[in-house]
């Protein structure tokens, strides 16, 4: 390439008048080693541009994390789309479960009353009911009597404890007579 041509291009270059093609020619020229001495000072710039243009991302690392993030984004979008239907289904199933529970509870309670009516409701004739009631009351009264007996025995125990306490008091007094110091102590305390 003509040196004169390059010089012209350079001038135009600094004025911002070169086309991209012109600039590529300049780059090609300056990247090669055999640049004449008086033009060498322009070389650094074009070398810099060329080396910067070669800069690239660390492919693998970048691709992995990008794919991961796009995957995340897709999943998010999918969830956002799928949500309304799924939500409805979720609520419906909840309501259904609640209803089922309520109905089954009602059935269970009904069955309980059907199969196990009480003894009183079962007897049809009033006479039998009367007798049964009397028997029941009798049982209660007998039970009550034995209970009272036991309570009486408790009463006698109470009396015995009182007498024992009397003996205790007696011992106390005799001790005081036999030990005047202790009596003195007692009186000062009082």
């Amino acid at each position, binding site marked *: 390439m003509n040196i004169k041509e390059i010089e012209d291009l350079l001038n135009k270059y*600094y004025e*911002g008048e070169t086309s991209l093609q012109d600039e590529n020619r300049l780059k090609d020229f300056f990247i090669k080693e055999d640049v004449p001495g008086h033009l*060498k000072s322009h070389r650094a710039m074009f*070398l*810099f541009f060329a080396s910067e243009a070669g*800069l690239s*991302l*660390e492919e693998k690392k970048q691709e992995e994390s*990008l794919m991961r993030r796009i995957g995340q984004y897709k999943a998010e979008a999918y969830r956002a789309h799928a949500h309304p239907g799924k939500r409805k289904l979720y609520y419906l199933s909840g309501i259904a479960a609640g209803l089922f529970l309520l109905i089954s509870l009602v059935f269970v309670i009904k069955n309980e009353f059907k199969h196990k009516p009480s003894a009183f409701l079962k007897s049809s004739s009033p006479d039998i009911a009367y007798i049964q009631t009397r028997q029941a009351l009798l049982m209660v009264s007998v039970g009550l009597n034995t209970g009272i007996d036991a309570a009486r025995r408790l009463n006698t125990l109470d009396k015995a404890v009182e007498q024992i306490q009397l003996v205790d008091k007696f011992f106390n007094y005799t001790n005081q007579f036999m030990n005047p110091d202790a009596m003195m102590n007692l009186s000062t305390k009082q």
Partner: protein
Amino acid sequence: MNLQEFNAKVYPLKDKIFRFAKRMLEQNEEAEDIVQEVFIRLWKKKEELDRYRSVEALAMVTTKNLCLDKIKARKFPVESLDNQRQFIEKVAEEVKPDHSDLIFGVREAMKELSPSSRLIVHLRDIEGYEYDEIAEILDMQENAVRVSLSRARKQIREFLINTKMYEYQRN
């Protein structure tokens, strides 16, 4: 637009998006996050994508806006750690054998540019966009793009001359 079309038309933009985001944020990890964010935004819009004149311009505009948001959110600089990391990155890049010391000066010069002209230089000289595309992406007049591009190129050149960054190359 289905997944196949998306993979064919939009996914290949990943490096351009990454470089653009990196130019704006001056940070690798955040730029990587931005790339993903841009793809997700575009994927969410996949039904409408066919209606845009240029999906690529849309992608770049989205990138720009997300980066601006990120920069705004940064207001309270938690950058000391980031700077540390950047420094390490830079050193690592410098160790690369091919012309990295030459390039280093230009990188510094780029940092001296105003944010908007830095982006213009990036879109034109690194990514090779036409002026109307740059105007669309940056929401500017085409002529204003031309003017600031010319000014920015001269500014880089001046910076390199003043700091004599290219000097040894003469020998």
